[in-house]
């Protein structure tokens, strides 16, 4: 019997394969991009010549490359439905120990040390989360305090200057065809993470676990092992960030990486990732990184008073995210009027902008 040959028409489905509407749909979801665009327009109007000057663009690249690597680490953790608030302290720890161990004689030894430290921190976090089933927030909160405490204890609060400080400083200033080497490292890390997430079995598993852990488990995915690997990879990235910190500042200060976690999470979230996991793109996280760096840079360029900077930053964030959804809702309403298809259905709140 072959019902297949007489397929009933009720099961037919026409896939919309037109490229145009795909890009349109994609653009509609990229509200981080609109925020960035708006920021760039504001920057151009107010301080255009300075903002777009070569020096400032180089500064921007430098300023975003360290946090950029940390944002990638945060992203993969957030994709699993976790959160890592220890990234800042772990970066500090990696930087300080890499600067101080054996006196910090070589930048390559420091790279190794920093990555190992980061990896260890990540492995501990990941083990507790994956194998002991603990809440990531509380685990990484403990690690936040522990790592920062070790930073203080290691240098008694005094910055650690590696022996190879001069090499670090000159390495940090190196550019390749005009692009700072630190930025190149960041871009390489973006490419690596994008490849891992989108092109490998591991990446697919990360998304599956974040979206529906039970389904992932039932489908034979090694949930614990994958979760652990995510935290370890995040740790390695953070360690790399610590090393880049040394390259940029040539000293392991005890405040290195302070409050970085907040900015990293914010960049991931404004880039469209969902804190409950399973949804988020590398592209969005990168845009989020750029947004926060540009905001800080712009406030500096406009020489906004220290007293008002925080207020401006906060208001900017609130206005930006609100406007982005307003314009999104509007464009949706327009679509509706045009095609009579869109709705105010409850499902509409499950857009990326929706609450998790």
């Amino acid at each position, binding site marked *: 019997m072959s019902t297949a040959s007489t397929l009933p028409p009720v099961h037919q489905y026409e896939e919309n394969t037109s490229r145009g509407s795909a890009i349109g749909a994609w653009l509609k979801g990229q509200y981080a991009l609109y925020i960035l665009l708006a920021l760039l327009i504001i920057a151009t109007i107010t301080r255009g010549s300075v903002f777009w000057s070569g020096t400032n663009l180089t500064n921007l690249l430098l300023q975003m490359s360290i946090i950029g690597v940390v944002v990638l680490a945060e992203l993969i953790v957030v994709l699993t439905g976790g959160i890592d608030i220890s990234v800042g302290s772990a970066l500090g720890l990696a930087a300080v120990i890499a600067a101080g161990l054996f006196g910090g004689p070589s930048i390559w030894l420091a790279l190794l040390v920093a990555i190992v430290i980061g990896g260890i921190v990540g492995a501990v976090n990941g083990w507790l989360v994956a194998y002991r089933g603990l809440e990531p927030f509380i685990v990484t909160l403990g690690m936040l305090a522990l790592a920062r405490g070790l930073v203080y204890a290691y240098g008694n609060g005094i910055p650690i200057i590696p022996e190879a400080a001069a090499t670090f400083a000159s390495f940090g200033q190196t550019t390749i065809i005009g692009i700072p080497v630190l930025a190149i490292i960041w871009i390489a890390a973006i490419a690596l993470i994008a490849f891992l997430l989108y092109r490998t079995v591991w990446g697919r598993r990360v998304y599956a676990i974040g979206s529906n852990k039970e389904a992932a488990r039932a489908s034979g995915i090694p949930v614990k092992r994958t979760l652990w690997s995510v935290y370890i990879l995040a740790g390695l990235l953070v360690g790399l960030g610590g090393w880049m910190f040394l390259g940029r500042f040539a000293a392991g200060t005890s405040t290195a990486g302070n409050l970085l976690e907040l900015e990293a999470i914010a960049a991931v979230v404004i880039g469209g990732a969902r804190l409950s996991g399973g949804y988020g793109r590398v592209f969005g996280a990168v845009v989020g990184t750029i947004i926060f760096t540009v905001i800080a840079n712009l406030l500096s360029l406009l020489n906004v008073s220290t007293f008002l900077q925080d207020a401006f930053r906060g208001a900017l964030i609130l206005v930006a995210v609100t406007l982005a959804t307003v314009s999104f809702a509007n464009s949706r309403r327009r679509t509706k009027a045009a095609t009579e298809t869109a*709705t105010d259905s*409850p499902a509409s709140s499950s857009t990326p902008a929706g609450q998790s």
Partner: protein
Amino acid sequence: MTSDQHGHDPTTDPQQTVAFRATGVKKHYPGVKALDGVDLTGYAGEVLAVCGANGAGKSTFAKLLAGVETPTDGDIMVAGYPHPVRNAAEAEQAGVLMMHQEPLIIDDFTVGENVWLYKLRAGRDIRPWAQKTNTNSQRTREVLRGVGLGHLRTTELARGLGPGQRQMLSLSRAAVTKHRIMILDETTASTSEEHFNDILDLVRREKAAGTCIIFVSHRLNEVFAMADRIAVLRNGRLVDVVRAADSSPDDVTALMIGQALKALARPAPVEHHGAPPVISVQDLYGGSARGVSFDVRSGEIVGLYGLVGSGRSSVARTVTGQRQAVGGVVTMRGERIKLSTPGDALRRRIAYLTEDRRLEGFVNDFDNGQNMSLVVLPRMARAGVVNAGQEKARVKELIRDFQVKGGVKTMTKSLSGGNQQKVVVAKWLEADPDFVVLDEPTKGIDVGARANIYEIIQSVAARGKAVLVVSSEAEELLSLCHRILVMRNGKVVAEFDPEHADTDDLIRTALTHQD
């Protein structure tokens, strides 16, 4: 859209009181016209069945009526309510009670609280004492007993309930809310036949009280046992409304899918060559299974029948590593195995198709392609890097084979319930396991696609694999299996040869056998 080819026009009836009237109702999702202009009237004191293939728009219509979604165009007037309902709270005030295809259960609430969930609706009454209802009261327990959940503790969390129990729990709300329209959206899909009697009783009582009941089901025998009129939807349009008395299941099937179904061939008998069974279970304990033993041979399809809560799923989960056995021996081809995770099982080519689609069936944020390839992805990858082209090509084939109404890039969660189920079935059969347990594989799947899935299952067995099918539908097992085991209270109490048994035998054994 309406038809009067049956003489008297059954779509309208001036003699009866109108309960709701839908005119020109459309519901369009991006890229999908779920409903495309439906006019339908329901009357007080009747059972109106809504039939249609998967994705025809049945649930969508029900959701519009219950105010959970708002129509793109047209409106639905509920009798006694001044304007079309705009949200669930208004629908409640208008007297619409809906049992969703995915039941509305708050996992972190107790069973008792879930019974009284609608107490939390939009009523302006949020005074502290308004919540006075004791969710552990005698009344609550009676209500639960009324839907066959008397053995549950009212204070236990709803999180632990299986899909069948969730359906019945949601149904229990009928007894504690005032309503004039009651919608049952595939409430019977994951419950066994004997629960149908509870539901039938309930419906009779409601009918007598003047409620308009809308009944959605793919089981045409149930539809004909219950309905007064049958509305048939196809691709978002109302094809016809017929009187149950003037019609037959075959007529309705033809209306639904545009052709009549051929009868399913019996599976070819299995030949034993003295080889050890693919899987052999001895004295298995775990979950609610209490000492279960059985074999499944290569090429054999074994059915597992029982009532909701008889322990079938516990057995299925335990032999496939989804949960750990507490006692007992499982041997695979003569070798004793111990499975502690689903991953272990998969490595030994043992698979379990879950009955709990909502919780562990598919990944919410994945599209059909990603969901279907989830299990077999490592096979489509080299050194961990996915071969995207191969994946896409294979998934396209699967979508065609399983008649999924959706594309590779459609999000699985936006599919209709039955189409989601097809995705899940496809995902597991694609893994090509040596031993596969299918727990309620056809739940919510329409008659057309169902035949197709039976065929695929038979072809799997024909390739020498062992299949265990858990089902609440005796008929399904009788036509599909080589042997049928019946469970009761966690034990296998009888074995039937489908050639020499009928539905009644199975149900009676499941119900009345004493041990």
